[in-house]
């Protein structure tokens, strides 16, 4: 066959390799940063040098070990109550990761469901969903979370609930638009011609095409969830008082920023690295998962 003459010989393994190549440095840096974050939070009890809530008022506000006056026992120094900053950072990562994973996943599930329904049914169902999303998005998200936290009470659950309630719209909007785009393509018509039902088309044909998009969005959403958790714990309506959080640490460090700037600087650094990590991971995954170069 003429059209077979110059075919691309692509095997299984080379396809994965090609995907990883497409992902590039972004993918690797993202994987590394997020990987470290996950490992640290998973192994917190093993790698933290101290109990994060153990106070030692005799050695309060010690500088990091490498600065004059620091002690090797407290690599990142201590806060005003003499608690080990490194240990607190490590345990805070746990809170952040739990919130990021659970809240982002729940928001994704709810959002994708709404998006698929709106996108596939169209008509008044779509109108209703779209208007709901519009109204929803008109609320300032952080304010909404604060109000919500105030109503259900502070705690990990309310932080997660707040994020889910606010951020499902992000998924719903994008999934709705993408579903509509995909349904207009001929493969959806072809699926109807072979007799697939609406549900079947959604599940077997459209959903696989939403994977790159939603995975990317999920990674980015995890970064956003971390930021929201930081804000809520900064204003003190996140988890219970003695559980360490990055936001809480920033709030405490803020009062003594002139005497001990590292107490505030270090959690901020952790936050920035985590969010960058999730964003790069999202970008990299999109390139990895989307073999069909979009035009």
């Amino acid at each position, binding site marked *: 066959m003429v059209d*077979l003459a110059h075919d691309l010989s692509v095997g299984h393994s080379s396809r994965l390799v090609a995907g990883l190549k497409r992902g590039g440095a972004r993918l690797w840096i993202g994987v590394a940063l997020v990987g470290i974050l996950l490992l640290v939070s998973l192994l917190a009890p093993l790698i933290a040098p101290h109990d994060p809530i153990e106070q030692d008022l005799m050695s309060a506000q010690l500088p990091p070990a490498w600065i004059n006056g620091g002690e090797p026992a407290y690599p990142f120094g201590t806060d005003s109550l003499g608690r080990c900053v490194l240990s607190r950072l490590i345990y805070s990562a746990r809170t952040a990761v739990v919130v990021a994973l659970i809240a982002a996943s729940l928001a994704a599930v709810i959002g994708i469901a709404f998006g698929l329904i709106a996108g596939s049914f169209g008509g008044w169902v779509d109108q209703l969903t779209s208007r709901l999303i519009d109204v929803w998005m008109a609320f300032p998200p952080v304010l909404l979370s604060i109000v919500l936290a105030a109503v259900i009470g502070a705690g990990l659950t309310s932080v997660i609930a707040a994020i889910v309630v606010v951020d499902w719209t992000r998924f719903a909007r994008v999934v709705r638009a993408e579903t509509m785009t995909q349904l207009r393509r001929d493969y959806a018509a072809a699926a109807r*011609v072979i*007799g697939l039902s609406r549900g079947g088309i959604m599940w077997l044909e459209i959903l696989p095409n939403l994977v790159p998009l939603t995975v990317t969005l999920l990674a980015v959403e995890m970064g956003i969830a971390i930021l929201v958790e930081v804000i809520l714990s900064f204003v003190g309506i996140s988890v219970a008082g003695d559980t360490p959080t990055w936001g809480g640490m920033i709030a405490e460090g803020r009062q003594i920023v002139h005497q001990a700037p590292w107490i505030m600087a270090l959690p901020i650094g952790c936050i920035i690295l985590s969010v960058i990590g999730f964003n790069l991971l999202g970008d990299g995954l999109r390139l990895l998962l989307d073999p069909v170069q979009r035009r």
Partner: protein
Amino acid sequence: MTDILLRTGSLSFAYPERAGLFRRPVPREVVKRVDLAVPRGSVLGLVGESGSGKTTLGRLLVRLLKPTSGGIQFDGVEISRLSEAEMRPLRSRIQMIFQDPQSSLNPRLRLGIILTRPLQVHGRLKGRRDRRDQAAALLDLVGLPTGFIDRYPHELSGGQRQRAGIARALALEPDFIVADEIVSGLDVSTQAHILLLLRELRARLGLTLVFISHDLSVVRVLCDDVAILHRGEVVEYGPVTRIFSAPQHAYTRQLLSAIPLPDVEPGWLDDASPIVIPHQQGSAA
């Protein structure tokens, strides 16, 4: 009397189109009172330029669209008013090959899945092993190597993709296939292969085809009858030899004379035919 597999009676279709935000939607008729009769085992060519309604007509015949008025009888059964669910059992007998295989093959599925999806939907697959066997048989049928089972559509050339599109349409062993502009995006050399493949399959499997094209020369290769469409209406309809040897309608003659044959013909460019192109855009190109 010949055995007619598909017959349409005064088939019409209109898109609702809003003239303005607060005006009532004005229907725009794109297929107008079309009467066709396709004998079993024959190939009907539907020829028209952009805006002729040929693609819409094709989609009506496979009931991707519901006619505004008129009827479609498939093997004696009136299908024009059937609901999506009522159509489903008939789907295995009526298939379609799409113009652009880039868009009609799901980019995220492997060929093995795409080709056997019709069998899966109609409960004709017996497990994983059977799926691979069936996919391999289909690939073989259209002249693709069986190793393509694990390929994604974007890893194929244009001609190969179109072969895959044909294989999918054949999976359910349908009686009737609508082929919509299936060679228009292909190179000349590939195009000839696809046309001859379709000719061979038609003879071997006894297919009844409606072959939609903008290109009269392509139609000649494959079709027994031709219907010329112009602005949603059939302006001429008859056996292919008659249409080519003695075209009756002025539009058919215009269409035939506009085809540039690969022969040097001085004066072809001077002979300006009085075709009027409307200023405003009528429909999507």
